[in-house]
């Protein structure tokens, strides 16, 4: 199986599957070398320390082997020389939609972003290929001292906060793809919430890939200072191309003492996207980091959101839904690193495999010997729709010492022909019956999503099921 010959997978992806022709003012060309990195640094006007950080990331990227000794061999089909690493119109993020160039604006309008912003969001950032086209925050939120800008703007305008945490939660050499991101990152969000400020409505970022053979490498850094609270949501789409597209983000979260960060992802990548993302948060004393992660679409997703519970009483949680359609592989999971007493982690993962789809759960829970009063709960449930669907579970739990408790439950189930017949007898089509059963399977997790996102999620599941039955 090579990148070029992989057959199209017929799933209705009409929502995100469109693109408008663009003229790019800045194009780093195809392939990756030192000159590509200098080009990106020049275009973005990076300070020297960022340029040096990129170069170091590039070196580590070259050094690190592909992790195919434990991960899928499909990674070898990523042809790094064929990818375009930076594309932009040279835009500065606009504060109003009226200022956003028409060709970019109509993309986001079609995806419903301005409408959602009006309805229920405290702020929005919309990234188009390499750079944010729009970034705005409601005045009332901004007046509380909340910073919500693109990462490029963040590192220039707020270096004192940015530099302190950037690359500290996830070092550039964490893995091959975090190193690649460190070399060529562009876009993503920078958020700072001052002590005690609780942002009531979610902030949202939307990541849109528009160009073929493109790699999107956004970098997000979120800091919630002492006692602050924030919900951040990200959505992602790309049109379906014949050739592979790469999305490789790095997301770092820092929750200071008593802070709470909830990070919600609803991705709906088209079936040509390699989605290889590193996400991790640090929770200080009594802080809470919660990842709610919904992975639909992509050719291959590898993503294991993590929480390092660094302070006493810290909590980490990962709630994950993965849907592997025909020909897709969702390799997802969670990492929970307990590094202080009385820390608590919770992992709930539900995966659905359709057709020849494959879902893999990898979990890592680490509680060192010297700690006391730590707890972990892990539940992972898999649903197989067809007899040739596949699921694998690789839990790695290392709990040492006295007085630490860990609990792990896993299940695999299948929708039976009798269940489908029962639902059909009530008047539901086979596809509608499948959708209903799948929605039922993830229902308890979907309840944790904000209303608007749970509706979207249900619609995405329905679309996947329609394409898979018949």
């Amino acid at each position: 199986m090579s990148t070029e010959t992989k057959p199209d997978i017929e799933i209705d992806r009409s929502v995100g599957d469109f693109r408008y022709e663009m003229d790019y003012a800045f194009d780093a060309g195809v392939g990756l070398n030192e000159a590509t990195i200098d080009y990106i640094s020049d275009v973005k006007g990076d300070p020297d320390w960022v340029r040096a950080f990129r170069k170091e990331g590039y070196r580590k990227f070259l050094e690190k082997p592909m992790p195919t000794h434990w991960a899928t061999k499909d990674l070898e089909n990523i042809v790094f020389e064929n990818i375009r690493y930076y594309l932009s119109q040279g835009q500065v993020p606009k504060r109003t939609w009226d200022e956003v160039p028409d060709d970019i604006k109509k993309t986001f309008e079609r995806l419903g972003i301005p409408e959602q912003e009006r309805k229920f969001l405290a702020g929005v950032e919309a990234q188009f290929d390499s750079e944010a086209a729009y970034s705005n925050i409601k005045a009332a939120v901004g007046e509380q001292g909340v910073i919500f800008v693109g990462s490029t703007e963040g590192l220039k305008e707020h270096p004192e906060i940015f530099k302190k945490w950037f690359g500290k939660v996830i070092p550039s050499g964490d893995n091959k793809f975090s190193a690649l991101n460190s070399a060529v990152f562009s876009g993503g969000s920078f958020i700072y919430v001052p002590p005690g400020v609780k942002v009531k409505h979610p902030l949202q970022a939307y990541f849109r890939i528009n160009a073929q053979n493109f790699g999107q490498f956004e970098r997000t850094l979120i800091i919630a200072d002492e006692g602050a609270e924030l919900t951040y949501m990200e959505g992602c789409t790309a049109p379906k191309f014949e050739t592979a597209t790469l999305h490789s983000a790095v997301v770092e979260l820092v929750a200071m003492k008593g802070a709470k960060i909830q990070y919600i992802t609803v991705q709906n990548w088209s079936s040509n996207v390699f989605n290889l993302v590193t996400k991790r948060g640090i929770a200080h004393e009594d802080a809470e980091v919660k990842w709610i992660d919904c992975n639909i679409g992509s050719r291959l997703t590898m993503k294991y959101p993590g929480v390092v519970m660094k302070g006493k009483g810290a909590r980490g949680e990962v709630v994950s839904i993965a849907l592997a359609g025909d020909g897709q592989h969702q390799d997802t999971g969670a990492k929970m690193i307990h590094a202080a007493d009385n820390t608590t982690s919770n992992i709930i993962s539900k995966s659905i495999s359709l057709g020849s789809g494959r879902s893999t759960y990898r979990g890592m829970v680490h509680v060192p010997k010297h700690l006391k009063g730590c707890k972990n709960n892990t539940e992972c449930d898999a649903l197989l729709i067809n007899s040739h669907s596949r699921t694998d579970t690789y839990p790695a739990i290392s709990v040492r010492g006295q007085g630490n408790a860990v609990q792990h439950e896993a299940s695999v189930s299948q929708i039976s022909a009798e269940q489908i017949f029962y639902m059909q007898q009530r008047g539901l089509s086979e596809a509608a019956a499948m959708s209903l059963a799948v929605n039922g399977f993830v229902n308890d997790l979907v309840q944790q999503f904000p209303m608007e996102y749970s509706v979207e999620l249900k619609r995405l599941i329905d679309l996947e099921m329609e394409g898979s039955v018949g």
Partner: protein
Amino acid sequence: MSAHSLSIRDLHASIGDKPILKGLTLDIPKGEVHAIMGKNGAGKSTLAKIMAGHPDYTVTSGDVLLDGESILGLEPDVRARLGLFLAFQYPMEIPGVTIANFIRAALQARLPEGEELEATDYYAKLYAKMDALSVPRNFTSRSVNEGFSGGEKKRCEILQMAMLEPSYAVLDETDSGLDIDALKIVSAGVNALRGPNIGMLVITHYQRLLDYIVPDKVHVMSEGRIIHSGDKDLALKLEAEGYDWVEKQFGESGIKAA
């Protein structure tokens, strides 16, 4: 055969190579309640599944007509939307799907594309039907049949029937697994739905159910055919004397012997 009936014409069906129905003919006019009785293994439940379009069975000849139109060859969901309802002997569990959402989806499936079920009207109707069937309100938020007692499952079937308002309903062994109190409640529910706009076929092994749901006609099924029909007194006679006499007199073995 009338345009207002559920009509089964000389139906032959098999599972794999094994014939199950061997020329079954039956006519259930709208407004009537018919009962099918018979020994275990007579093919009663199979008949219900075949009418509903279960994919495991193959119809080899004959026809099933709903108000004069053949429904063989239609998907199970199309048959259901045309007005055929089957109350299952063993209703399936659907984890995570609440009864309220399930029935709502079923009603939504009956609307033309682009039309949305009005939520307030829906809940008003649902609660009214639940009250009429003495179903507690908290029922609606439970997952379909998950962890239900036998009686709850059957009541849930009758509630669905009440909400979907079919023109023909087949009740497959609705009395199985019910104690006498549950049987009374379920029967009262079925009786409340009787009327000129619905034809019902009650499949049962025991006459007991027919004390509560009194049929207009009783049919005896044996070896994949209806071998004898009569009024409600036939059920009493079967209860008292068993099936052997009727099989001997009217069944295939009886005919051969004669």
